[in-house]
């Protein structure tokens, strides 16, 4: 985490490096499993009831790039994001992330119903590696961004769903991590707040962050991203500029 992130030296090594990564899931949740299955470590076989959600995916991301992931539902976009966030581990190949990550994935997940908003902010930010002093410095700003000042000592469960998302976004987007992962969370919240979130993301991109963005919204993708990854049937079909990727996607699936 040094100044190289700011582009001082351009021949930098990639911050994200995905090499021949693959992950497989079971098709049927209820299918029988036995102990032998569980401990058979080899990732090479595919059993009848399993499928590869992603396979042979390789790419690398240089610091400061903004990447949009494109594909139809169920083609592995979110799974790829989870691999990069390292909340899932590949069965095949490797995923290396060399810098801190601020994951805007299931952002309200870390919040505890019974604790107050204040406690929750400290807890979530702390779990993502922030020190108490750093949180204290940013606390007012987080609250202001979430427009939630009157509810600091309200238990989280009493907040409206809009407020929950606002405070969660405010915390995660203030993590100061060099890599940002966004998974369509911004579909929620009212229009004004959505725009505010987008401005925050743009600001962060200008600040030299690397972004990984999963969305179905073409306008958003073109707005933020420079490079696109097109996933289809668990494989990386095209890795090119975002316009090229979107054109190919439209050609394949005929969306206007």
């Amino acid at each position: 985490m040094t100044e190289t992130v700011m582009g001082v030296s351009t021949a930098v090594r990639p911050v994200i490096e995905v090499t021949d990564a693959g992950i497989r899931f079971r098709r049927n949740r209820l299918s029988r499993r036995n102990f032998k299955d569980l401990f058979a470590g080899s990732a090479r076989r595919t059993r009848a009831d399993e499928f590869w959600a992603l396979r042979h995916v390789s790419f690398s991301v240089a610091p400061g790039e903004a990447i949009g992931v494109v594909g139809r539902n169920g083609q592995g976009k979110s799974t790829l994001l989870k691999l990069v966030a390292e909340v899932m581990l590949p069965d095949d190949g490797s995923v290396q992330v060399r810098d801190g990550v601020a994951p805007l994935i299931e952002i309200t997940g870390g919040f505890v119903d019974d604790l107050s908003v204040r406690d929750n902010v400290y807890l979530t930010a702390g779990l993502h590696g922030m020190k108490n002093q750093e949180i204290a410095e940013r606390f007012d700003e987080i609250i202001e961004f979430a427009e939630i000042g009157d509810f600091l000592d309200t238990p989280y469960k009493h907040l409206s769903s809009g407020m929950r998302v606002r405070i969660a976004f405010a915390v995660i987007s203030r993590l100061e991590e060099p890599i940002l992962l966004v998974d369509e969370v911004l579909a929620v919240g009212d229009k004004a707040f959505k725009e505010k979130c987008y401005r925050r993301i743009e600001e962060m991109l200008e600040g030299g962050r690397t972004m990984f963005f999963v969305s179905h919204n073409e306008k958003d993708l073109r707005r933020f991203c420079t490079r696109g990854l097109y996933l289809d049937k668990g494989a990386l079909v095209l890795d090119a500029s975002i316009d090229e990727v979107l054109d190919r996607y439209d050609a394949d699936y005929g969306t206007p």
Partner: protein
Amino acid sequence: MSAAIDVRQARTPAARYRHSLWLLTARDLKVRYSTSFLGYFWSILDPLVMAGIYWFVFTVIFQRGVGHEPYIVFLISALLPWTWFNGSISDATRAFTREAKLIRSTKIPRTIWVARLVLSKGIEFLASIPVIAVFAIISEFTATPAKLQWGALLFPLAIIMQAVLTLGVGLIVAPLVVFFRDLERAVKLALRFLFYASPIVYGIADLHKHPSLEFWAAFNPLSGIFSLYRAAFFPQELRWFDVGVSAVLCLVVLGIGILVFRRTIHAVLKEI
């Protein structure tokens, strides 16, 4: 306010581990104590009621009371650690399912999800130790006072051994329950069996009428651990053979736990 990336001094992985572990443990305790009025009292009420029941059954109804006097101190000195073990393991069966959302969104080292249970229950156990002292002091005014022995110095060793054992069992149970939901009930049953298979309502010495039992009982790692706890007031309960076997078993269980956890965590993360 700038959107540029601040240069933050990176922490070592160990420091991050400790930090996250402590945050989650503190959260557990905070949730427990901020949502219930009686808070601390609840964590000691359960073992106290159980101790009261056993004391009544064995000393009043059966008029047993040979050897281990005062029986209430004898009981509580093993019941409180048992409550720690029992609580951690039964919570470990839900370690992943209850926190699924959080686990899916943060990448802290996964063993923390089990370790935090052992730690928070362990802190509750430490907070309940004064209860033993209270009963020991009360017993001073009865015909059979409890005398504090040098064996009380073994308390820390017992705590360390129990923490290792509990963590080991938790690391085995937590991921397996994700795949085999039935295991949750099986664990409850096993814990109830273990309660009577461990020297809690009785002492190790009570087994000497059954020599073969006495030998095999040593292979319950809890025997050695409870014998260390009890050495504080009941020196005849301290069996170094049991303690030795237990120490080895604790490490073996932790080793198996780490192995199982490592092999299954990939699949666990997909499943939750």
